[in-house]
C-alpha cells in the first residue's frame, strides 16, 4: 500500500537546476536508495518528500495520498505527512532524555500516558536501547544516538521511513554493523524506505533498488547488480565503483556480440551487447577491475579471444587483494586480483560478458 510515487519533480535555485524531471516509484516494503555525489539533488529530493523543501514542479504521492502537486498548489505540511525521518545529524533533542525523545511524537498524537510508556518501551526494546531510557543524548555514543533517532522515527509506526545519510557520522567499523542492523530492522518491519547516501558500498549492500543521480538528473534506476554490472553511462560506471573505460570502434557485429577495435594493442575485443550496432560506430566499454584476469605472459590458461598483453607499471597490496596498474600498448588499465603475479609482462583477459557498453 505505501507506494511512493514521485513524478517530474523540478526545482531551480537561481541559475542552478537542482532537480530536473526526477521521477521514480518505490514499491511497498522496498528499500530504495538515492545515490549520487554531494549536490546531485538526492537530499533535495528526500526533503521534498518529507515536506521540508518545496519543488517548483511535479507531484509526490505516498500510499495513494497526494502530498504535493505543483499544478494544484497542493503542499501538505511536513507535520501532517506521517513519515519517519532519520536526519544526518540524528537531530536527537539534547534537552530530552531518550524516553522523552521517543515519547514526543506520541504526545503530539495525544496518546494516554500509559500507552505512551508501553509503546516507547516496546520500541526501545526494538532498537536495543532499553537500559538507556533515562539517559540524555550527550551521555550516549554516536551509534546509540543514531538508534535513538531511528526509534523516534519508528515509534509512531509511520508509513514510510526516510534515511538521510544516517551512517556518515559513524566510524568505519561501526558503520558496517549499523548497516546490516538497519537493513534487518527494515526487513523485519517491512517498512517502505528511502535511503540517501553518497557511499556506493552502502547503496549496493543495503538496497533493493538504487537510483543514481547527478546534477539533478536521474541517471539510472535498477538493482545493485544492474547499476554495477550494466551501467548505462560513463557517470554511473565511474561513480559506482572503479572502472576501466575502453573507447573504440565497432568492426563487426554478429549474434549480439560486437567486435571492437580500440587502438593498436586492443584488436578484435568481443563485447556482449543488448542491441544491434552498426559497424564503424564509436563506443565505450566499461570493465570492472576485478573482472580482468591477470596472468604471467607465459601462462597458458587464456589464449586468443579477448586476451591482450600488457606491462605491469605498479602493484599495490591492499590486504584482501592486489591492485595492478597496467599498460597495454598505451591503454592504461587497472586490475584487481587476490592472486599475486610476479612477472612484469602479463596477459590480461577481458571476459565478454563483463563488458558493458556505456553511452
Amino acid at each position, binding site marked *: 500500500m505505501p507506494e511512493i510515487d514521485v513524478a517530474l519533480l523540478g526545482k531551480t535555485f537561481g541559475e542552478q537546476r537542482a532537480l530536473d524531471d526526477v521521477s521514480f516509484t518505490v514499491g511497498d516494503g522496498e528499500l530504495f536508495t538515492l545515490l549520487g555525489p554531494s549536490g546531485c539533488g538526492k537530499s533535495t529530493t528526500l526533503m521534498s518528500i518529507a515536506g521540508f523543501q518545496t519543488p517548483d514542479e511535479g507531484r509526490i504521492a505516498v500510499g495513494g495520498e497526494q502530498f504535493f502537486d505543483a499544478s494544484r498548489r497542493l503542499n501538505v505540511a511536513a507535520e*501532517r505527512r506521517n*513519515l519517519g525521518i532519520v536526519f544526518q*545529524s540524528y537531530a536527537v533533542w539534547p534537552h530530552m532524555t531518550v524516553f522523552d525523545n521517543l515519547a*514526543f511524537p506520541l504526545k503530539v*498524537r495525544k496518546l494516554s500516558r500509559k500507552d505512551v510508556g508501553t509503546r516507547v518501551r516496546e520500541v526501545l526494546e526494538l532498537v536495543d536501547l532499553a537500559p538507556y531510557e533515562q539517559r540524555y543524548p550527550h551521555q550516549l555514543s554516536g551509534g546509540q544516538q543514531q538508534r535513538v533517532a531511528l526509534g523516534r522515527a519508528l515509534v509512531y509506526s509511520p508509513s514510510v521511513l526516510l534515511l538521510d545519510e544516517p551512517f556518515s557520522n559513524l566510524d568505519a567499523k561501526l558503520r558496517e554493523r549499523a548497516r546490516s542492523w538497519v537493513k534487518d530492522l527494515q526487513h523485519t518491519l517491512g*517498512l517502505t524506505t528511502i535511503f540517501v547516501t553518497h557511499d556506493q558500498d552502502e547503496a549496493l549492500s543495503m538496497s533493493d533498488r538504487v537510483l543514481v543521480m547527478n546534477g539533478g538528473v536521474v541517471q539510472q534506476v535498477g538493482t545493485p547488480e544492474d547499476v554495477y554490472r550494466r551501467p548505462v553511462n560513463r557517470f554511473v560506471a565511474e561513480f559506482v565503483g572503479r572502472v576501466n573505460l575502453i573507447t573504440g570502434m565497432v568492426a563487426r557485429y554478429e549474434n549480439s556480440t560486437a567486435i571492437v577495435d580500440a587502438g593498436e594493442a586492443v584488436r578484435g575485443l568481443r563485447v556482449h551487447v543488448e542491441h544491434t550496432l552498426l559497424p564503424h560506430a564509436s563506443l565505450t566499454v566499461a570493465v570492472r577491475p576485478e573482472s580482468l584476469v591477470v596472468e604471467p605472459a607465459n601462462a597458458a590458461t587464456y589464449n586468443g579471444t579477448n586476451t591482450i598483453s600488457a606491462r605491469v607499471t605498479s602493484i599495490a597490496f591492499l590486504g584482501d587483494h592486489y591492485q595492478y596498474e597496467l599498460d597495454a600498448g598505451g591503454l592504461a588499465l587497472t586490475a584487481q586480483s587476490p592472486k599475486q603475479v610476479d612477472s612484469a609482462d602479463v596477459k590480461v583477459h577481458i571476459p565478454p560478458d563483463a563488458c558493458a557498453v556505456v553511452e
Partner: protein
Amino acid sequence: MASVAHDTLVLPRPRRQLLPAGVLQAAVWLLVVGLIVGPFVPMLYASVRDRPLYEAGGVLTLDAYRQLFSDGAFWRAWVNTIEYASLTTAVAVAGGAAAAILVSRTDLALRRAFGRLILLPILLPPLGLVLGWIVVWGPGGYLTNLFSQRLHIGTLAIDTVPGMSLIEASRLLPVAYMTCEAALARADSSLEDAARSAGASPARVLRSVTIPMLRPALLNSATLIFTLAVASLGIPLLLGTARNIKFVSSYLYLQWTNAAQPDPATVSAGAMMLLLVATLLLLLRNRLLGAEARYVSIAGRAGRNAMLPLRALRWPLAALIALYLVFSTLIPVLGLAVMSVVVVLTPLVAPWHLLTWANWHQLATGEFHRAIVNSLEISLVGAVLATALVAIATLVAHRSRFPLRKALPFVMLYPRATPGLIVGIGFFWTYLLTWGVGSWLRGSIWGIMLAFCVRNLPFAYVVMYPTLARIGEELDRAGRAAGAGWWRTSRSIVLPLLRPAIFSAFILMFVEILCDYDPALFLVKPGNEVIGTTMLSQFIQGTVGPVAALAMVQVGVTVVVLGLGARLFKYGSSSIGVTGGHDA
C-alpha cells in the same frame, strides 16, 4: 532483536492545528513591525502639517523643513554633532581595537581580568556616569578645583566639544572592543604564527596581518559608534548647554521644552532628518557586515593561541588600560558615591567633615521614591514582555516559512540606530492619535515602558540570534517530522534549547530599560517619572546630592543584576550542548 507487530499498531495521524501557525506568525510580525516602524508615521505626518496634530484642521506643508533649514543654529548644531561624533569614533575605535589586540593576542599582564572589566563602561548607567564625570571633572568639579586651586594645574575642560567627545568615547570604547575581540576570536591565530615563522617581527605581524584582518570589524564598529554618538543626548545636554554648544539632539530637545512657543512641526522635521541620517548609517553598516563575512578566515579553532610577547611593555600597557578604567568608571562612580553622602563636595573642606545621610533619606520620599518604584516596575515587566516577544519574533525571522520573515532582522535592529529622543517623539505623537488606549498609556508608566522596550529590543535580538543559529535546523525539522506543528515545535524544542540566551536577553533588557532615559523625556509627567528623567531634571535644577544617591541606586541595581545573571547563566548553561545532536 525483539519482534514487534509493527503493522498492527495504528496510531492516529497528527491533527491539524486549530490555529494555523501562519496566523500567530503574522500577528507577531505585525506587532513587531508596528511597534518599531509605527511611531515614525505620526512623526512624519506632524512634520508636514501646518499645526500640531492635536489641533483640528490643518493643511500639508513643507514650511517646517524650510524654517528648520533656514535656521543657522540648526546647521551649527549639525557641525558640532559631526565634529563630536567623528572625534568620539576615532578615539573609541582606536582605543577599543588596541585593547582587543592586547587582550586577545598578547601576553599583557592581567589580560583575563581586563577582558571582563573593560565592558563595564557600556554596562553601567550612562547618565549616572556622565553625572559622575561632571561632579568630578566638570567646571567647578571636585578634582578640577583641587587641581587648579591647590596644585595650580589646569585640567582638560570637559565642557568643550573635544572634552565631551572624550567622555563619550570612554563610554563607547567597549563597543569597538567587543567587535574587534569577536573578529580576533574568529580568526585563526595560526595566520599570525605563519607570519612569524616567515620571519616577521611581532610589530610587523601586527601591522601586516592582524590589523588588516580587523579592517571589517573596525569599519563596522566605527559606523555603529558614530551613529550612537550622533544620537547621544545626555552629554550634549548636561555639558554643552551651559556653554551654549548645541548639538542636533539637544537643539531639538531644547526647541521643544524651552521655547516660549513650542513648534512641534519643526521639531518633528528635525527628528525626521536625524532619523534619516541614522537609517542611512544603519544601511551602510549592514553592507559592511556583509563584507565582513567574506573576510572570515577558515573557522578558527579556539584554544592554543601563541601570544605575541610584549616583554618590557607587559606592565606599562596594563597600567594604561587600568588608567582608562579608573578614569571612565572608577572615578565617576566614586565621585557619585562620595557626592551622595556629603552636604557639598569641595576641596576647601575635607569630605568627612560634611558627611550626611540626608541625600539618601530624600530617596524615600516624593519624586525620587516614585521614580525608583516606577523604574523597577517597568524594567521587570518590560524585560519579560520584550524578551518573550523578541524570542518568538526571532523564531519567525529565522525558523519559519512566513513570507515576510526576511524583513524582521533589519526591523529588529533598527531601534539600535534610532536616537532615543526620536523614539520618544514618535511615541508621543502615536499616543496622542490613538484615543483611549493612547491616553491611558500617556497617563501611566506603561507608555514609557513601551517606548523603552522598543528602543532596547535590539539587545535581546542580538543576544538570541547567535545562539539560535547554533541550534541545528534538523532539530526542529525532526519535531515537524514527528508530527508537531510550528508552534508546538518551537515550544517543546527550540525555545527550551534557547533558554540560556533568553535568560541573558532578559537580564540585559532589565538593565537597559532601568538605565534608559531619553525616550522618556517627551513622555514623562508628574506621577510617572523614572530614574533617568528624574536624575536629569533634578540635576538641571541644581539638586546634586540626592541625584548622586539616585545614580548610585541605579549603579547598584545594575551591578547586582548583572552579577547575579552571570552566575546563574554559568550554572544553567553547562549541562546541555546545543549543536545538531551528535558531538561534532
